[in-house]
Structures are given as structure tokens and as C-alpha cells.
């Protein structure tokens, strides 16, 4: 009797671990689901863990994506196809490593971009120490090697490369394929 219970438990544990590992591998290497949320609420975060959703901040993509949209993303195509301008991507925020952002790639490395130079974030970090004021000028610049320039579609309400400069490719997690929720707005992006 005790033996059957034990072996049942062992089978259960075996299957639980197997499915947890398969889920991890799928989400880590193939693709995952992302919920666009307006604020990083921890109560919502707990629910999302149950439904295996990753959260990203999203008011910055407003005309394209809205809050509470669920997106399907993939992580495979980077092996045979480079990121191109126009792709919508999920990346780790450069200013807060525990947060994900959803932006559109505007320029990849080698392409031209018109921007403020130096970038506000860099200027802040230099200015607070050296007292002389930094003048910012609009210049045409190239995106450096291994970096991409990302911007939100909602230009007025978006903290993106115009603030922190080009971001390294290593921060990009996945590329958005389509919106799967709400079902009435199921569209490829």
C-alpha cells in the first residue's frame, strides 16, 4: 500500500519536473507570451506567473498596441534573419533590469539616425560630476556595431533610445509575431 503511494508520488514528481523543464526550454528558446500592461502591478504579476505571461510596459506603443493586449513572440528567427528596422521587439529595459519594454526598431547598426548628442542619460551622468553644462545638438549619427535604435510608436510618451541612446543587441529578448488577445483584434504585427 505504502509502496504504491510512493511510486505514484514519484511518477507525479517526474512528470512535473519534465513538464516544467520543457516549458522553460520552450519559453527560453522558442518563444513566449507577453502581456502589455500599463503599470507593473505586483498582484497582476502573480496572476501572470500562473498563466506563464511575461509583462512589459506598454503605453509607449499606443497606436499599435494597447494595454492588456497579449502578444505572441518568438526567439528563433534571430539565428537566420537579423533584426530589421520596423520589427517590434521585447527587450530588457536598459534603465531597469527587472522590467521589459516593447518598442519598434527604427535603425539597426550602420544606419543613420538623427538625434540629440550626447544622449540625455549620458549627459546626466557626466554633468552631475563635471560642472560645466553640456550643450546638446541635433546631429546625424550612425548606430554603432552590435546596437539597435529603438523608439516607441507613441513618440510623445515614450522613454526610448532618444533618452538612453542605442541599446545593445544582447538586451533584446524576442520579436513580436502577432497579437493573440483580444481575439477580435488578432493580427500579425
Amino acid at each position, binding site marked *: 500500500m505504502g509502496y504504491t503511494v510512493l511510486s505514484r508520488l514519484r511518477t507525479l514528481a517526474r512528470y512535473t*519536473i519534465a513538464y516544467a*523543464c520543457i516549458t522553460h526550454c520552450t519559453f527560453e528558446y522558442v518563444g513566449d507570451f507577453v502581456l502589455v500592461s500599463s503599470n507593473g502591478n505586483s498582484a497582476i504579476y502573480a496572476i501572470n506567473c500562473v498563466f506563464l505571461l511575461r509583462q512589459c510596459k506598454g503605453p509607449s506603443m499606443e497606436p499599435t498596441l494597447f494595454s492588456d493586449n497579449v502578444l505572441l513572440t518568438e526567439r528563433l528567427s534571430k539565428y537566420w534573419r537579423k533584426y530589421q528596422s520596423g520589427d517590434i521587439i521585447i527587450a*530588457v529595459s536598459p534603465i531597469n*533590469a527587472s522590467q521589459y519594454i516593447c518598442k519598434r526598431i527604427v535603425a539597426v547598426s550602420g544606419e543613420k539616425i538623427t538625434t540629440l548628442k550626447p544622449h540625455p542619460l549620458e549627459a*546626466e*551622468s557626466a554633468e552631475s*560630476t563635471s560642472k560645466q553644462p553640456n550643450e546638446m545638438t541635433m546631429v546625424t549619427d550612425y548606430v554603432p556595431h*552590435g546596437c539597435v535604435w529603438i523608439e516607441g510608436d507613441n513618440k510623445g510618451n515614450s522613454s526610448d533610445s532618444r533618452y538612453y541612446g542605442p541599446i*545593445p543587441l544582447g538586451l533584446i529578448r524576442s520579436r513580436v509575431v502577432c497579437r493573440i488577445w483580444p481575439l477580435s483584434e488578432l493580427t500579425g504585427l
Partner: protein
Amino acid sequence: MAFRRFGRSLLYSLPLGITFLDCVGYVARVDGTSMQPALNPVADERDYVFLLRWGIHNNPVERGDIISLISPKDPAQKIIKRVVGMQGDVVSTLGYKHEIVRVPDGHCWVEGDHTGHSLDSNTFGPVAMGLMSARAVAIVWPPERWSLLKNELPRRRRPIQVAKASYYN
């Protein structure tokens, strides 16, 4: 029959192995001389270090830890450096375009121990914490160099001004 059994056990153990490497840690070879003398003290002998991934995202690293991060220049390359400054610290740089830099939010300042022979923050500036992938805890090979890696920062490379602890909250 044996073949099917092998296939089934592979189907079970492959995801398990990958998940273990992703969540707990793995062993990697250190190339290059940028971390001398802590790692690779003799030029043509390679050290193997154990990189701990467990808890890397929940409890942040400290100044002096050796971390492995994705190179900001090339996403396919991993580099191993020592953390010199965390976000909010003021560090004096060695040949960066600004002499003194306040490390921005979400970034850290990393340097190799072998000053002058290391491609580090003095070249590419502060790096985003999101690029950090693991913390090096021990040298596992060769056996005569078996030791835990200490958290140490040379006195002259300490940040000029350390951010207050409340800065993180």
C-alpha cells in the same frame, strides 16, 4: 526497443539538462588575459570557472564580484569582468571620454583586473545590468588552482562616491 528507450530518456533528460544549465549554473573556460592575476595568471593556461546563475536576477551583485555578461558590442560573445561601480556610484575612469562618470540607473561599471589590457567600461562605457548573465564563484580547473573567487576590489579602483543604500529602494 533499446533505441526507443534511449530516445525517451533523451527526451526527458535534454530539457532537464538545459534547464539546469540555465537556472543553476555552468562551467566555462576563460579566454584572454584581461582578468590577470585573478584568472589565467599564466598566459597560455586556461582557467575554467563555475558561473552561478541561481539568483542573479533577484539579489543584485556587489562591487568586487566577478560577473559574466554579454558583450555590448557583439551579442554572440560573453565577457568576464569585475564590477567596480553600481548604479548611482561616481567612478573615476581610465581613459574614457569623461574623466568622472556617475553610473546611470540600471547600469554598472565593469573593469578587467589587468588594467590597460582589458576591453571594459573604459572603452564602451557603463553597461546595462540586463546584459549580466552569471556570477563567477569558483575556479574548478586546473585542480591545483581550485579555489573560490574572492570579492575584492583594489583600493585605488573603489568608486569615488558610493551610492546610498536608499538609492536602490
